[in-house]
């Protein structure tokens, strides 16, 4: 599929029709997963929805600047992760205005529901940086090098963040077990 042409200056010029089609396909395929990813980082469904929508709009607006359109999903994921880490909490009114458009997560029956809830509560108490590293490592199953690229930091920083996160999670889960 011809996705782009080059003008005289060598700059990529993309067909707008192709852009709309591809953005639409990306939305259908990746929107749910990106919402889940954002939710795991920010811990709020409405904020997660706003983040993912913002990421798609930014991708739409900067479509002509994306060099490798075949990896536009990576661009989207990076936008979601960065927005999730940096986005401040919106005002309450803004959150409520979009409350109806996002379905609250429901716990699937089966398995160790209580145990999973404990783990999730422990993750939510992590700082956002550590939480992002944990989610990308244990939910997205990304290697540390890819996590470093997404978080725009060194691999050492990722390892450090993951180590700190695991330590805190271990302490939290151990405390939970003692309480039980």
């Amino acid at each position: 599929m011809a996705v782009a042409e080059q003008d005289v200056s060598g700059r990529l010029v993309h067909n707008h029709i192709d852009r709309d089609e591809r953005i639409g396909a990306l939305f259908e395929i990746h929107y749910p997963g990106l919402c889940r990813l954002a939710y795991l980082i920010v811990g709020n469904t409405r904020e997660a929805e706003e983040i993912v929508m913002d990421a798609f709009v930014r991708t739409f607006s900067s479509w002509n600047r994306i060099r490798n359109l075949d990896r536009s999903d990576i661009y989207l994921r990076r936008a979601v992760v960065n927005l999730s880490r940096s986005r401040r909490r919106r005002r309450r009114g803004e959150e409520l205005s979009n409350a109806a458009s996002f379905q609250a997560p429901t716990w699937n029956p089966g398995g160790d529901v209580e145990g999973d809830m404990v783990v999730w509560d422990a993750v939510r108490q992590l700082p956002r940086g550590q939480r992002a590293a944990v989610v990308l490592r244990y939910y997205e199953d990304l290697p540390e090098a890819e996590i470093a690229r997404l978080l725009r930091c060194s691999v050492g920083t990722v390892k450090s963040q993951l180590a700190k996160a695991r330590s805190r999670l271990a302490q939290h889960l151990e405390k939970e077990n003692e309480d039980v």
Partner: protein
Amino acid sequence: MSEPLEQRLREGLARAASFEPRTAQARARFERLTRRRRLKTRIRTASLAAAGATLVLATVGGVGFTKDIRDRLGFGDPSGSWSIGINGADEDSATKDDGGDPSESGAGAVEGDAKSPVEDSNPKDGAGAAASSNGGSVANGDAGAGGNAAAGEGGTKGTTGTGSQGSGAPGVTDWSDTGLDACPDIKESPAAGQSTEAAPSDEGGAAGAPETSATPTPSPTHTNSCEPSSRPIGN
């Protein structure tokens, strides 16, 4: 970290994320958001187009306005049947203006402008001459300075042509103002002071007499009277 904890993390995160977002609603919202952006682009484009259209309209309007002015001044439509009147002086101009060199021709209007006879007058010329006009109006009749108040066809005021103000020095026919070629025959016109008597024009009949021949004769375009035998110049 122990392997069980990693496993618990994977399972816990997967369960926490086991919900289904409302993609359809979000997609509709995304379409709305991007439609606004597309609309902004269209508005921007439309603004540029409107600016261009305004420029075009202004240009066309300017041309039209200019044409109107040109018409009023008698310089419009060179293919028209009416000609440009020159040196047609009114009474005031005949008495007040010096009229230039008396030795020069007291040439009046060559042709009155039937459409705007007043504007045919050139006070500076003051040449005791009146316009002989095809389809002349009262204004042409008033322009009887120099006594040559030959009413144009249909003119009703010929009496003013008997005025004595024509004693003013005849004006110099400034052909350069008209853009017309100089007519050497003009120099044969009477000198100053000789233009006090009204003289009937060829077409306008006697001064003061209503024109009876109602058939206007279209004047040739830019009749600069290079054919003086057919038209009286001044007196």
